[in-house]
């Protein structure tokens, strides 16, 4: 037990050191800061999905809906309301979270494939709205004519627009808050009821856990942080288009979580890193980069059902 604990702490420390140092070591190995920012943002999305998938045992195939709502919420705030990065993040996150809270009661009674299918359906609905509502969303061309704004802290201004390193750290701080909250919740009595539902829903129910209510809360928390990731994604690109809402984006999150290891807290971040790097490298080599990612995914799932982090762990304990 003790050794396990120590190992976990060491792993957590290494992850944070790597994340904090990324703008310095990434260029040294041929990367660039925006690549690191992409990993952190998509990693947050995948870890949020995994709060529901890995720790509650509920598969959503529609998380792009809330990711996209977060992105449009942030983009439209900057485009139409106020030139404030802080507010755009808050509003984007709220829009996605509120939508999830409202949709939740309609879907939480469903299980397994049915739940996944209905989450896709809701996601596609938002996709078509964004696609069709040209005058407001920019339609297929995306929402343009805005950029993230320098952060005004009152006593100082941080130019997260021009400095990609400053923006990286802005994203990393929000990532840390979100991930910290999720880790804390998972170690609480509430978090243990989620594990109980994942492990044996029937037993959980007959222990006095109102399962649907707990799944709803887990769903809203998960969607809240995926909306935050969406808002940050919009700021990263200074652009939003309907593809952020598309079902294949949801699929990418699932791939990242499963690829990295959905039974581990950091697994989905690793999955996101692998996904983003493969995408960055392969898409400059071939149009069909997704087939290679897909092939890699299938191999991992077939031979290492606990994901890439599962392989590393087994090595470490063997």
């Amino acid at each position, binding site marked *: *037990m003790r050794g396990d604990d120590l190992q976990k702490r060491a792993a957590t420390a290494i992850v944070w050191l790597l994340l904090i140092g990324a703008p310095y070591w990434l260029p040294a190995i041929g990367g660039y800061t925006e690549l690191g920012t992409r990993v952190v943002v998509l990693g947050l999305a995948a870890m949020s999905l995994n709060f529901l998938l890995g720790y509650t045992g509920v598969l959503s195939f529609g998380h792009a809906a809330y990711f996209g709502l977060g992105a449009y919420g942030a983009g439209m705030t900057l485009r139409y309301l106020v030139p404030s990065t802080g507010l755009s993040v808050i509003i984007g996150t709220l829009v996605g979270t509120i939508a999830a809270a409202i949709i939740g009661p309609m879907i939480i009674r469903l299980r397994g494939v049915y739940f996944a299918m209905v989450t896709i359906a809701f996601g596609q609905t938002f996709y078509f709205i964004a696609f069709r509502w040209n005058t407001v969303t920019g339609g297929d061309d995306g929402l343009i004519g805005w950029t993230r704004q320098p952060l005004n802290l009152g006593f100082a201004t941080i130019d997260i627009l021009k400095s990609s390193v400053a923006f990286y750290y802005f994203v990393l701080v929000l990532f840390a808050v979100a991930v910290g909250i999720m880790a*804390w*919740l998972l170690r*609480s*009595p*509430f978090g*243990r*009821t989620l*594990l*109980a539902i994942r*492990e*044996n829903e*029937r*037993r*959980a*129910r*007959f*222990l*006095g*856990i*109102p*399962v649907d209510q*707990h799944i709803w*809360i887990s769903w809203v928390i998960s969607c809240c942080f995926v909306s935050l990731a969406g808002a940050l994604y919009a700021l990263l690109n200074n652009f939003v288009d309907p593809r952020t809402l598309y079902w294949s984006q949801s699929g990418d999150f699932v791939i990242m979580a499963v690829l990295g290891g959905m039974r581990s807290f950091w697994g989905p971040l690793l999955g996101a890193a692998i996904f983003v790097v493969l995408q960055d490298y392969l898409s400059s080599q071939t149009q069909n980069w997704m087939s290679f990612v897909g092939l890699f995914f299938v191999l991992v799932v077939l031979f290492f059902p606990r994901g890439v982090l599962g392989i590393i762990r087994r090595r470490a304990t063997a």
Partner: protein
Amino acid sequence: MSLLRVENVSKHFGSLVAVNNISMVVEPGELRAVIGPNGAGKTTFFNLISGFFPPTSGRIVFDGEDITALLPARRVWRGMARTFQITEVFPELTVRENLRIAVEVAAGNRLNPWLSRDADGEIRARIVELMDMGGLGEKADRLVGELAHGDQRATEIMMALALKPRLLLLDEPTAGMGDQETYDITQLIRKLHREEKLAIVLIEHDMRVVFHLADRIMVLAEGEPLAEGTPREIGANEAVQAAYLGKAAA
């Protein structure tokens, strides 16, 4: 006041009548057995009491309140706990973790994002108490899925007990057990009944266990109530012998 009143409940699955017009009253602190041949509707009857599914007709009153339409979790909060014919535990968690979940829910912490140091101390103490009572102390940090059948069974019973129920429903607690394990579980049930003043209803095929433990016995056959009475009366009942005991002996 009676603790549980089941009034004329029936359950139909399509054209199959699994439970037909059964009534039962359980007094506080009573230990009652439900017996009957395979497929008699015993488990279905438990499922109706515990809220697994709603009855086709009839009414269930617990502690003076009509609970016929309540969700299982709400019945648990009112003091009803159950175990299953096929053990339902959290196999990939340890004994301690299994019990912790039950104890935390029972202490009203299910939605809490944190625990105070005091609350955590109380919960740990309660877990140890439950493990000792169930003879699980030495297996505290083993995964439940890796334990012997009898210990998994004991874990499930202690989880139910962690909920501080006033009524405990046990569906074939000794099914699939050897003589020693059966004896241990029987002793445990007797202890719970005596020391915790629990009302217990148990479904059981092992007649030694039934006649050893039960104050009263209800016999079901093909979804119908066949007889009800003390072990002595049931043992002497010819209809019961024909329908059930005869078959078991043959």
